[in-house]
């Protein structure tokens, strides 16, 4: 999820990319019942759509991600896409074979219509009035983008974490429009513990005096403290205990105990740094909404909790992958998806990748992980 921690080298085999904007004037009715009269999605594409329009791949982002999946910007060359290690010429998701689309989801804060956008009815920013959107709504909006790009069927839809949920949802919502779903480090629904972490993050934001019931932008302030805390707690869940021990241990910043509340242990410094950085660019309303989209996601909900029944609609072939040290969405959660697919006799490959980096492993370029991705993607016909 913290794509910002991985970029930075300023290198990308894709070179410069340019974000684009799509406008949709047909109203979109959301799962909550609310309606968006119109909306914009910003997106990027890499590679070339073939004549048969059969080589398109959609990459879905997770909580804090964006449409900037790969490449870098000419005017901001250090801003490398969040999954640049996977996507590019000759990379596992090879842009010489595939036409890859990255999109900032509805409600996002990177340019797609969201809480920071101006509500056409009021002339003011939506702020807290932006309706809650769900994974289903994101997929519906992505389908509109596919229509506009002339993509009838995705060769594949893939994503990690919340992005994997979108890939799974695509296979249920538009079973005829997706040939392969790659569901990485994901889960068929959140556990009570997952929701609990989200709730703490939300309370951090909601209780920030600068939150102003979500209309902070009107007042020219940002609930920085809340966002910072939300990000700090999130980060703890993205890393593994082992990795934290290895990275920070009990290392002291000043080599001694100082008996105060300043940064003493290196892990505190890391969390504060991540929190500060995030609070500097991410929108609090978007963050709140993303966590709710995660909480609500549960395809089995309408089937009395029977995931196998919920997945009966899926027609795609699946790659499901999990990481051994991911305790946020543990391998057991991925296996739930695998066995529900097996019940429905769907084609599925499941890899449980040994990687010490916890939930964030899906963003790393672990050799075996990338070999699995490459092998699966290479077998997809274009």
């Amino acid at each position, binding site marked *: 999820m913290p794509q910002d921690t991985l970029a930075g080298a300023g290198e990308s085999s894709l070179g410069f990319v340019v974000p684009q904007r799509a406008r949709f004037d047909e109203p979109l009715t959301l799962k909550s019942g609310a309606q968006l009269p119109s909306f914009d999605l910003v997106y990027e594409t890499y590679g070339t759509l073939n004549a048969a329009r059969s080589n398109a791949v959609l990459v879905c982002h997770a909580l804090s991600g964006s449409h900037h999946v790969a490449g870098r910007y000419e005017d901001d060359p250090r801003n490398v896409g969040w999954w640049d290690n996977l996507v590019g010429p000759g990379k596992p998701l090879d842009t010489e074979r595939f036409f890859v689309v990255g999109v900032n989801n509805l409600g996002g804060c990177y340019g797609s219509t969201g809480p920071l956008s101006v509500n056409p009815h009021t002339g003011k920013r939506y702020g807290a009035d932006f309706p809650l959107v769900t994974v289903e709504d994101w997929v519906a909006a992505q389908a509109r983008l596919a229509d506009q790009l002339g993509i009838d069927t995705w060769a594949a839809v893939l994503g990690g974490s919340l992005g994997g949920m979108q890939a799974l949802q695509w296979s249920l919502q538009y079973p005829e429009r997706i040939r392969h779903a790659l569901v990485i480090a994901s889960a068929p629904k959140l556990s009570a513990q997952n929701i609990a972490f989200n709730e703490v993050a939300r309370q951090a934001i909601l209780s920030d005096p600068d939150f102003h019931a979500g209309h902070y932008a009107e007042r020219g302030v940002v609930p920085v403290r809340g966002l910072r805390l939300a990000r700090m707690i999130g980060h703890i869940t993205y890393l593994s205990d082992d990795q934290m021990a290895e990275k920070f241990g009990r290392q002291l910043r000043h080599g001694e105990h100082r008996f105060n509340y300043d940064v003493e242990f290196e892990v505190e410094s890391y969390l504060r740094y991540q929190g500060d950085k995030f609070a500097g660019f991410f929108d609090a309303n978007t963050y709140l909404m993303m966590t709710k989209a995660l909480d609500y996601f549960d395809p089995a909900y309408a089937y009395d909790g029977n995931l196998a029944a919920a997945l009966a609609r899926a027609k795609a072939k699946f790659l499901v992958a999990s990481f051994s040290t991911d305790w946020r969405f543990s391998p057991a959660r991925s*296996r739930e998806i*695998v066995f529900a697919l*097996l019940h429905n*006799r769907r084609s599925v*490959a*499941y*890899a449980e*990748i040994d990687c010490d980096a916890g939930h964030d492993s899906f963003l790393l370029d672990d050799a075996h992980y990338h070999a699995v991705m490459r*092998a*699966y993607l290479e077998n997809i016909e274009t």
Partner: protein
Amino acid sequence: MSETLPRAMNAQERERFDFAVIAGWIPPGERVLDLGCGDGTLLRYLRETKGVEGYGVEIDPARVLGCIRNGVDVIQIDIERGLSGFEDGSFNHVIISQALQAMHATERILGEMLRVADEAVVSFPNFAFRANRAAIAEGHMPVSEDLPYQWYETPNVRFFTLQDFEALCARLRIEIRERKAFDEAGQPVADDPNLNGSLAFYRLGRAR
């Protein structure tokens, strides 16, 4: 010209031979689960020759990758922990080809196999094969085409014979529906298979 003596098969011939024997017991179009499926070659063979709908189970990461390269549906889980998640009777046949001897939870695995499938196909090297007995008699652990490992590097953890296996099946109320034994040259063995058979194949079901 002297008559050519049957020679031991090379690795590739052995693999093809193994597959052919197993395939002979799998009717076309079945649902098949292959435990310890390696890089999925057997499943691919069964898909191509029998049109089966197959899934493999494998724990080794490199072999799982091999399956994905081969376009074979593979599930990376540890069979030693059982097959929970696989539903009762969800397969026609479950196969464990020369892998049972490398697993600890023998009884549990056999029980699980006949829970998830109507029939099980098991193949394993016979430790009581004549040449293996001779090696022991000479004071060494056997190394052969069917047991191609030195004692210090073998993945095998269960050393058993046809007689041993059949006794366990009887105890577990597993019915032996068919048995085939072959020597190192791949010739079928009828006479005293526990002595003359190097490789054994069983088709098993629940005792009725």
